[in-house]
């Protein structure tokens, strides 16, 4: 097992470069978005992607899933989607003349679950994913079913101001390790997108990492050393959100864990064997932004969670 880890650790920079290269065949630009999603995968956390329609959220997640070769399923969320449509349901089957119950697994039973437009699902259906996301298990009736590792939910959503959406409850938002914003591409990137997708063939990606290698990388991520000073700085940043001016509710200790894990993952992804301050500062926004609830007054004045986080980071 240790030899495997040593080998994977030695190959890690090459593996990451290859993954980025494969994703780059399909997704133009968006390097920091790709990095943040890979951080989420290495840290074993769920990722919420938010952008206006048409910016490639679904394509990005499908491409990343394709490079890993993991079981992948997609749930297209709609207002009439039911919890059982996600978790699965118990069926009665006739086996050798007698009737037996059989559990039919839902799409949540996969390694990478793409919950597309999650904020279009009803709150009841959204909350059905809570247990799966947090406990990595599903309970149907009296039975509990473990989900196979690795397990990630990558949810996409359109901005909540758009019609026909249900904002995710705070408890569910807190289950997402990262919230990643996807911005519009630059003119050059958009030209490249048009070039690639208006021809006869569309780019394809290869599987470049095995499930076993991914699990090893997740273990290595947790082993990346971080100094006590940086741990304290991360905790201080998290605690600061709880009494920062303009913040109604600060973030939970889950954010401290997430911030340190994500910083470790970023360090490993960048070929470093230790966490530095830049990792912490870079990961603070995607880790904290969806967990901070601003006061009405802050929202009225147009203050954003990202601005609050930047000020907190400057102060530590």
């Amino acid at each position: 097992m240790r030899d495997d880890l040593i080998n994977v650790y030695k190959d890690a920079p090459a593996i990451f470069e290859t993954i980025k290269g494969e994703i780059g065949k399909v997704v133009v630009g968006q390097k920091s978005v790709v990095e943040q999603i890979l951080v989420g995968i290495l840290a074993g956390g769920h990722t919420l992607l938010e952008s206006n329609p048409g910016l490639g959220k679904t394509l990005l997640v499908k491409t990343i899933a394709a490079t890993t070769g993991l079981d992948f399923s997609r749930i297209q969320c709609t207002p009439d989607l039911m919890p059982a449509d996600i978790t699965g349901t118990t069926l009665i089957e006739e086996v050798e003349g007698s009737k037996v119950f059989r559990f039919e697994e839902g799409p949540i039973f996969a390694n990478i679950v793409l919950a597309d437009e999650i904020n279009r699902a009803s709150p009841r259906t959204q909350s059905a994913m809570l247990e799966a996301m947090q406990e990595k298990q599903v309970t149907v009736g009296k039975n509990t079913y473990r989900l196979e590792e690795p397990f990630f939910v990558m949810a996409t959503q359109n901005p909540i101001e758009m019609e026909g959406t249900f904002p995710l409850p705070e408890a569910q938002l807190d289950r997402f390790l990262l919230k990643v914003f996807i911005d519009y591409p630059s003119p050059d990137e958009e030209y490249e997108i048009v070039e690639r997708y208006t021809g006869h063939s569309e780019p394809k990606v290869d599987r470049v990492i095995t499930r076993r290698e991914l699990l090893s990388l997740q273990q290595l991520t947790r082993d990346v050393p971080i100094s006590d000073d940086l741990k304290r700085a991360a905790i201080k940043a998290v605690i600061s959100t709880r009494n920062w001016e303009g913040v109604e509710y600060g973030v939970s200790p889950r954010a401290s864990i997430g911030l340190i894990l994500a910083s470790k993952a970023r360090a490993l992804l960048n070929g470093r064997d230790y966490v530095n301050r830049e990792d912490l500062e870079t990961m603070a926004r995607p880790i904290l932004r969806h967990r901070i609830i601003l006061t009405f007054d802050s929202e009225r004045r147009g203050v954003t969670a990202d601005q609050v986080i930047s000020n907190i980071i400057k102060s530590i």
Partner: protein
Amino acid sequence: MDGSYEFLADLRRLLGVYRRFEQSLYLLNAVIIASLIYIAALFLGIPAFFRFYWQDSIFAAAPVLFSLVFGLLGGKILRRWSKPDFFDHLDESLSEKTRAAYDNRDSDSVVMQSLAEDVKRRLSKVGAIEIMNNRRLNFGDRSVPVFQAKVGAVLLLAFVAIFSQSQAGEEISPQPFRALADLRERAKDLFGVEELPEEGASSEEISGEIYGKPSLAVLEEVNLELVLYPGSAAGFRSKETEPMDRLFTTSEPGVGVAVPTDLYIESLPPQHREIIKRYFENLATGY
């Protein structure tokens, strides 16, 4: 320092270097503070005061001793206030690496082993010079190693202290005053003024010590201001004090002796005549 990683041995070695460096900085700070205090005391005339009254006793050296004690205390306070950290004396990336490695020295993971090897390789190249040069004082865009800056400050302050001390110890010859004594005698003869009554007690008590900087030294300047530097020239001994005693102690306040201007001017050393003449002219015109 527990743990079995090899970089810990290098860390121990550098920690020894760092402690010696911190000790040197502490002493330099102490010397700087002591020098500043002593220079301030020189300008206030405190060392001269002590030498004047306790010249044969250990109290004469009290200002130096007090400056040293306060310097050492100030150095200690500065050290506590600046909260020095060994890791800050390594370059930025090595500092972060070494911190992380040291804080995780009990971990036995693959990543930690890789980090420990890297830290060992880099720490083995670090010596006393790097430790000393990495702590710097910033002056705008430029920066200087703290150690060099402090050594420079010590040398500068030592020069200032020595220079001030040598100025304070300048000996005055009674010669410039002899002319005034002769002048007084000639004036008495000229106007037939009787000898003023001696105040025996005061003349007996005069020891011949002159306290204060002579005004003649100032009168040589173009600027005619009379300046008395308190204590800065005290402590010397006059070899011929008798005429001086009478000159300064036997005259009653308000009893002046009229002296013809020409006679007075003639009695002055030729090189000072013009400037003193101008001085009195200015006085007469209400300058």
